[in-house]
């Protein structure tokens, strides 16, 4: 049986930047998976995590997400803009401190094919002892380009600390 689920790149971020980037992603896999475990230092204002492909900042991203939060208990957001919101929903908040790690998982299907790029994401975080948020979403990048770069960036300057891993999965037969 052929093994797959290879670690392509691992990023260790140390609180010196609001951005973590996977570059020179090979086009040799079928799907990509990103798993992140990190904190970010946003002292007071809300802060989410955006994902962009190939440095595209134009309004080519579409997303439908759903999540739970403290207030309101359920939240949904349809989003079209210059990024995919992979942590939290538009206008919701992430104010994780050092004791409040955030988890994200992103699945990108057929990232190197000639169709538009589609995927699903999920996240979870806890803030202090009273606020938690979990959610999931589906996103689309309306580009037919192969994805060769993925950037994760806080929405208003929080600095990232932790590990974000990029994996490749190859479709095939045993």
């Amino acid at each position, binding site marked *: *049986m*052929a*093994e*797959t*689920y*290879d*670690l*392509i*790149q*691992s990023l*260790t971020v140390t609180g010196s930047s609001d951005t973590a980037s996977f570059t020179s992603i090979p086009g040799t896999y*079928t*799907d990509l998976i990103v*798993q992140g*475990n990190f904190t970010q230092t946003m002292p007071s204002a809300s802060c989410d995590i955006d994902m962009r492909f190939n440095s595209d900042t134009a309004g080519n991203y*579409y*997303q*439908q*997400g*759903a999540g739970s939060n403290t207030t309101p208990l*359920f939240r*949904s957001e*349809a989003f*079209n803009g210059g990024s995919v919101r992979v942590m939290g929903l538009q206008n919701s908040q992430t104010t994780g401190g050092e004791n409040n790690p955030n*988890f994200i998982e992103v*699945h990108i*299907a*057929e990232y190197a094919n000639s*169709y*538009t790029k*589609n*995927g*699903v994401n*999920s996240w979870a975080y806890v803030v202090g002892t009273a606020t938690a948020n979990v959610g*999931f*979403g*589906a*996103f*689309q990048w*309306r580009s037919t380009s192969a994805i060769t770069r993925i950037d994760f960036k806080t929405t208003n300057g929080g600095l990232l600390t*932790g*590990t974000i*891993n990029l*994996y490749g*999965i*190859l*479709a*095939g*037969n*045993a």
Partner: protein
Amino acid sequence: MPILGVIDSAKTGRLANPSFYQIATATPSGVTNYTFSSIPQGYQHLQIRYFAKDNRSPVYSGLALRFNGDTGANYWYSFADVATTQVPTFGNYYDSASTDAFCGNSPGGTNNNYWGSGWHTIFNYSDTSMWKYTGGVGGNNGVGDGSYGGFVSQPGNIWRSTAAITSINIRSNTGSTLTAGTRISLYGIKGS
């Protein structure tokens, strides 16, 4: 399965103890369903990963599952979903006597700009002491006429059978025809 926060995460390449294995990949086109048969035993779990759409008039559609050819009302699904154009936006669907399990969303229509994708895990598929539990996430943005609209769900299912799963039929849940470009892959996940 890779573990978050692995200590030696600076390494690249395959991890020391790989546990994710290719079993089969299908590219069904012009048919409403596809069956993975003679599924090998010996893994802990199975996972389906899909990139799909069907030719239903451009509206939301989806993928469903049947195990071991069982067409009886032996499936119990529940899923939360959220959709841009659904009223209310949140939905909660439940059927304790369904004839198939829900795998995830995919769009309808022939426009190749709009696809659905997702993953779905089938837990303990070989264990003959328990019913079978499955779950995952799937969704899409935009349907085949180019209209804006997202749809994402997180389904969970029970198949009320203790039989080991040896075949999986994956199908358009509206009976529509899967279109060219659809890709469905089956993987095995080994336990410790």
